[in-house]
């Protein structure tokens, strides 16, 4: 059955390659458009981004649910001298991140007006989409590194070109932090490939390297630390998070949305795909430390968010807290916690992406993001306030919305293996309610100043832009099964991989979250 599926995907259209190529082609087309027609840039870019989005939805539709391995794989020889292949594939962990990347970019292109230089703006956003697809799909360590680093350039240009006053500092800091993290990762990548080779040909194939597990314990731990450093900075985990508030605050709205929704996920995705999968023993060894850092992030991010005067900075720090939850979930190593972590990546993308979009819309109207200068927006713009409420509640984790499902799964999953960590992290949920509701109260309630009274409400276009976010937030809150049943086989596979290569044993938690009679494919591995 599985072989049949594999055969089918092998012979069919290489959709994952197309996912990466379409936005690049779009960027080239946009660059070639005449400068005299600036109004064409964003629509043309949005068309290409939408084609990529449609392709990502096609991948989602064709994805076979109960299969744990990589699907739609495509391998082409790239640099044979160095054993490097163009190798892409998608599994339950990366599938939803690919869909999220696909959908966010056209929405952002349509929603956010750059005010100047639309051509490079559109081209950079498209390249960012291509690079993010590449990073999530890469199954070759070299290819992953290329994509992981190359996404820095468009984001750097977006912050530098369309950001706010302090953009020079923020863009450079963002670039250097991430580059510093990945510097040692490159050494580790080469070391893993070289040391795993033995008498065989050198390979950067992630699947094969994960199977070989040829490194000695200490080497594997060192390599894991080098990988983890890169991802921990990208997530970001306290204490290497300081680039994030600056980058988010100074970035243009489009940059903030993509940064929060897609690029931060490269960190947590990297920890899952290249941390746990390549270095199972080292992951188990480092799990207490990383889970602790995650929990510190949850509490620290929440406390610092409470104190912020700038609405955008507040959302940025709330990101630190939310990403901490995901890290805890990843390093709790249970089916539920990992599922929750993966789901929370999507949830965070939806809710924080939407929050940044709306803070951007507010800034367009009022030219300020300072909480103390805003008041009583609710009476002037009730629809806007309503949308904001839904997204905010999702970010807090109110039952019925998506945030609750993710956080709940992380907490119950982590409780078995990391009890005290979970107890502390649970306070983060309360703190989230504190800082978000307090900010909401100050900005939307109260007596509007004369300036605030003039705040126009959402336009139809803005409403349509936000609608997919709201739909996603409500849908995933009520019916997360379509996601979870695709995530679960991959997660179970990862945990059995961990159990196989380390002394970790997952405690029995009773019935899995998704009950399904056909659920037996994990036994094959």
């Amino acid at each position: 059955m599985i072989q049949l599926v594999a055969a089918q995907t092998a012979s069919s259209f290489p959709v994952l390659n197309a996912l990466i190529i379409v936005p690049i082609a779009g960027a080239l087309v946009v660059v070639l458009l005449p400068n005299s027609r600036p109004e064409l840039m964003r629509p043309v870019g949005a068309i290409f981004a939408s084609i990529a989005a449609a392709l990502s939805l096609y991948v989602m539709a064709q994805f076979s649910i109960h299969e744990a391995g990589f699907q739609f794989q495509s391998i082409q020889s790239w640099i044979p001298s160095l054993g490097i292949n163009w190798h892409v594939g998608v599994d339950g962990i990366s599938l939803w991140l690919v869909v999220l990347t696909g959908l966010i970019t056209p929405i952002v292109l349509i929603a956010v007006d750059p005010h100047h230089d639309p051509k490079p703006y559109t081209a950079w956003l498209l390249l960012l989409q291509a690079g993010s697809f590449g990073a999530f799909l890469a199954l070759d360590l070299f290819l992953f590194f290329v994509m992981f680093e190359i996404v820095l350039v468009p984001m750097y240009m977006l912050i530098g070109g369309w950001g706010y006053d302090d953009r020079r500092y923020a863009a450079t800091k963002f670039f250097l932090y991430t580059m510093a993290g990945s510097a040692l990762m490159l050494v580790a990548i080469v070391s893993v490939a070289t040391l795993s080779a033995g008498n065989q040909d050198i390979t950067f194939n992630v699947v094969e390297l994960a199977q070989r597990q040829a490194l000695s314990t200490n080497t594997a731990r060192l390599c894991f630390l080098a990988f983890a450093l890169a991802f921990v900075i990208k997530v970001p985990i306290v204490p290497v998070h300081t680039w994030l508030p600056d980058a988010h605050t100074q970035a243009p709205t489009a940059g903030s949305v993509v940064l929060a929704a897609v690029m931060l996920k490269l960190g947590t995705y990297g920890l899952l795909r290249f941390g746990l999968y390549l270095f199972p023993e080292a992951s188990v060894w480092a799990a207490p430390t990383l889970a602790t850092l995650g929990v510190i992030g949850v509490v620290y991010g929440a406390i610092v968010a409470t104190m912020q005067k700038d609405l955008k900075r507040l959302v940025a720090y709330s990101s630190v807290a939310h990403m901490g939850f995901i890290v805890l979930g990843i390093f709790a190593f249970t089916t539920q916690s990992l599922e929750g972590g993966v789901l929370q990546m999507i949830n965070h993308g939806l809710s924080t992406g939407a929050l940044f979009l709306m803070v951007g819309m507010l800034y367009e109207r009022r030219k300020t993001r300072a909480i103390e200068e805003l008041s009583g927006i609710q009476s002037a713009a009730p629809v806007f306030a309503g949308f904001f409420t839904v997204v905010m509640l999702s970010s807090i984790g109110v039952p019925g919305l998506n945030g609750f499902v993710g956080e709940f799964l992380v907490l119950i999953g982590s409780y078995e293996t990391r009890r005290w960590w979970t107890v502390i992290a649970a306070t983060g949920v309360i703190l989230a309610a504190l800082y978000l509701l307090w900010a909401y109260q100050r900005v939307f309630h109260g007596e509007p100043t004369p300036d605030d009274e003039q705040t126009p409400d959402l336009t139809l276009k803005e409403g349509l832009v936000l609608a997919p976010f709201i739909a996603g937030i409500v849908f995933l809150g009520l019916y997360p099964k379509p996601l979870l049943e695709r995530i679960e086989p991959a997660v179970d596979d990862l945990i059995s991989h961990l159990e196989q290569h380390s002394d970790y044993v997952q405690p029995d938690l009773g019935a899995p979250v998704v009950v399904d009679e056909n659920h037996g494919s994990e036994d094959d591995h």
Partner: protein
Amino acid sequence: MGALQILGFVGPSVNWWALLPQIILLGAALLILLASALAPQRTSTAFTTITTLCSAITSSIVAIGLWNDVKTGGPSSSIASAFGIDGFSIFFTLLILIGLAATALLSHGYLDREGIDPPEFHALLLCSAAGAIVMASANDLIVMFLGLEALSIGIYVMIAMHHRRSEARESAIKYFVLGAFSSAFLLYGIALTYGATGSTNLVHIRNYLDAVVFRDQHLLMAAMALLLVGLSFKVAAAPFHFWAPDVYQGAPSPVTGWMASIAKAAGFAALLRIFFAAFASHDVDWAPIVGVLALITLVVGAVMAILQTDVKRMLAFSSVSHAGYVLVAVHAASAEGTSAALFYLFTYTLMVLGTFAVVGAMGTDDEHPLSRYAGLGHSRPILAIGFTVLLLAQAGIPTTSGFIAKFQVIAAAVNNESYFVAGVAMVTAVIGAFMYLRIVMAMYVTDEEKERTSPTWHWTTSVVVIAAVSFTILIGVVPQLLIEFAEDAVPILIRG
């Protein structure tokens, strides 16, 4: 000839075909000088540039022919094994010819603008290129030294040619004095090598070192140390780099490009031929020293680069840190490391030529402040994006040739189990990246809208920049061919 035969002297057989690339260049130099002497009015900049370009093209066609000979017939040597004909020498010949063509194109606009006589400049450039080729091909230390001097003397004069600028003369004197100093080191090293091994021929030295176990190898160690110091001056490796920032800043930009690319490449060619090929059996002695040198060079280059405010000085220190990368590859003392070094030098040469093409077009004043680049992203978007690609390539960002080059260097170091060196190399890359990002930010982020000086742009400069940028991206995406070329170009010492 007849008289010599009577005296019983028989000269070594000469493979003229293998020497043709240099002969063409020297012929072109003579042609330019003759033309300028016979018809000074009619020897225009266009004539000299075209002559230089034609000689570079003809010469590279011959070099490609030689490459095929080496591929089919194997490497050989000529003139009593003093001159090697292997993949290595042809690799560098082609690289030097590319550099020659680019420098000729860059100087075209520059010489016109600054009112410098073109014939002398081009004649010196051609001699310098011929010297570099001899240096890269030499199988004998004396011949190598001759090539080095021919390369350097041309550069001394080219730096000083801008006679109205006192900085240019100051640079020339600095480079001359320190160059002479380093030549002295090199010569002393050659003399001690002769003392230790009984020959200046690299083939003989290698065979001797393979066969003989020294009871006391102080002499050889001293020889290696002196050779390394002499060549470190030439490639601007720390702590022998102090001339580089001043000289790079003061020299005319096309000449700076030539020094940063070809003089450095030729220096590394000599280094690789002497140490990797001839002293191969003693790599436990020299490789650790090269490793330390690489570490110092990487750190000094990266840290000093971010402290500069002048763009030419920044790029001078960046060229120091690039030398550090190549030294990391040399330090690996393996065929893999050597081909990584060759790949690095090839890609770096094109990047740096493109970079100095832009720098040269941005202005000729003695100061070259960062503020001159302010707003270039808006006033000249295509130029700015090209320059950005070249700078990011030097920072080692993926999808550029600079990344593939760095990757191979790291791979060579890791294969050699030099994890520490590899780690330091990557960390200094991040420090160095800050400097490139500063330039990029200066182009794209401007605080105030002020009157901008439009760069003085000549179409020949565009050709170089476009070629460099396309090459950098092309090799960054499909590097396989160049990797194979570099793998085939590992030096082989052969007698006869």
